[in-house]
């Protein structure tokens, strides 16, 4: 266990809470939670562990994050669904300058208009959070999902 100023840990937990909320219900704001030059990746555990570089989704910079949102909201064709994040076990793994390394576990569920809920993905975040601004922002976010076999598609961010 790292010794960390409790307020930083609390701020980071609150930031993850915000992240989950935004993914689930205010997807247009999703890019705002990243720094301009942030990288975002969704990666299968298989590729992650075998050190194969292929991501399932990747955005390099806020422009690409915004393009993803455009596709979710305007261009992609898909059956409507609601995702729901549960984020827990947030841990600070390192700290240097104005960046904090964090990990956290996630479970993301998905529900369709006339079905129940199912597991979309569970896994772990490996993140780098920029602490320099007034608000925390992801500088890097890597979402590693454990179940390599994706049920259908991952349309919204994990």
């Amino acid at each position, binding site marked *: 266990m790292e010794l960390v100023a409790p307020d930083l840990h609390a701020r980071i937990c609150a930031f993850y809470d915000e992240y989950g909320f935004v993914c689930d219900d205010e997807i247009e704001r999703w890019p705002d939670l990243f720094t301009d030059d942030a990288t975002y990746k*969704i990666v*299968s555990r*298989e*590729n992650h562990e*075998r050190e*194969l*570089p*292929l*991501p*399932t*989704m*990747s*955005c*390099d*910079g*806020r*422009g*690409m*994050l*915004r*393009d993803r949102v*455009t*596709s979710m909201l*305007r*261009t*992609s*064709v*898909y*059956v409507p669904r609601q995702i729901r994040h549960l984020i827990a076990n947030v841990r600070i793994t390192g700290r240097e300058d104005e960046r904090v390394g964090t990990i956290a576990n996630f479970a993301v569920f998905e529900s369709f208009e006339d079905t129940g809920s199912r597991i979309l993905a569970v896994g772990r975040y490996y993140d780098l959070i920029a602490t320099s601004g007034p608000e925390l922002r992801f500088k890097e976010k890597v979402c590693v999902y454990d179940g*390599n*076999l*994706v*049920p*259908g*598609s*991952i*349309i919204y961010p994990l």
Partner: protein
Amino acid sequence: MTIGSIRTPPWARIPYDIYSDPSIYEREQERIFWGRSWNYVGLEAEIPRHGDFKRTAVGDRPVVLARDKDGSIGVFENRCAHRGVAFCYRTHGNAKALQCPYHQWTYDLRGNLIGIPFRKGFQGQGGLPDDFDPAEHSLTKLSVTTRNGVIFASYADGMEPIEAYLGEILPWFDRMFDGRELRVLGYWRQRIECNWKLIIENIRDPYHATLLHVFLVSFGLNRADQPGRVVFDSHGRHYAAMNERLDRDASAEAKREMKSIMDLQLEGPKLLDVIREFPGRETLVMQTIWPNIILQQQSNALAIRQVITTGDPGGFDFHWTVFGYATDDEAMTQRRLRLANLMGPSGLVSIDDTEVVELTQKGTGPFSEAQGVIEMGGLTTGDEDHVITEGPLRAFHKYYREVMGL
């Protein structure tokens, strides 16, 4: 199931029971996957060294491919000859020999039985009969062939060489697999809730691209007025479609038909930073190789998509292998990886396809006596110089009906 008339040949219709009927599904396994076909099983680059192995499947059946000491490749069933354990329970690895965990029967990298603990009993008791011949209890082996680093296996004896099998499609296959060493960039796996044929048909349907894929169309990446064509082997079982990207604006006629155009601009244009790397003018080449793969070259994004059936007419596992070449520099690798955003479980293009094929299962499942209509482009089944056609689907169903005896 009687389909067809003088006007309409049977293959211009798709009888919907082929997507859901368990007995048709079983016949497909026998006649298609386990019949006279070369099934893709992997890449040489996945098992480069002696002892490397990989687990995959041919239709419903689990198989293992392994690299032997002499560099040759064995493909055999993942079913212990003793009592049937799917002994290879890792997706890949390296081993001197393959051992079943249950009683440690041991097989060499060609699937030959080379070790049986207590074969001679113990302290003079038990053991196998004297006339037990291990040579008769090897793993069931498949025929194996490779071409330029791509490995195929077959249950049939005396299969024609892969070159003859690919026939007229060979040059297109060779364009992607030109002998250069491949580098696997990673895998994707999806569970898709529809019959396996629907995803093959999706690729053999060049008609849908400018209509379904709003992303492509709206960002100007795909247009009806791009020159395109489709080619086949002589059976119509393999297929390739090519498109050229144009730099001029879409024509008025094209815009009229592609109603979903939105004229958007990428905020992160790096996504589409592509370069020409293959000879010829084609920027998009999609192929289907009977029976179980799709080959994709979307600019610099290269992938093999493999169908794994799982005993269920209404769903399959879809395994993608995304690759480049060993000679790629870092910039090229990054380009391929960025472009990978178009494909796979989160692909800006593939999402659409995954959804419509699943919706097709929902729409056809409860209608076993209904039929689809595939008359776009007339009733042709051969090569064509444009892509506003369902000829590739007709060719597929013509050959499918033949093999299936429907």
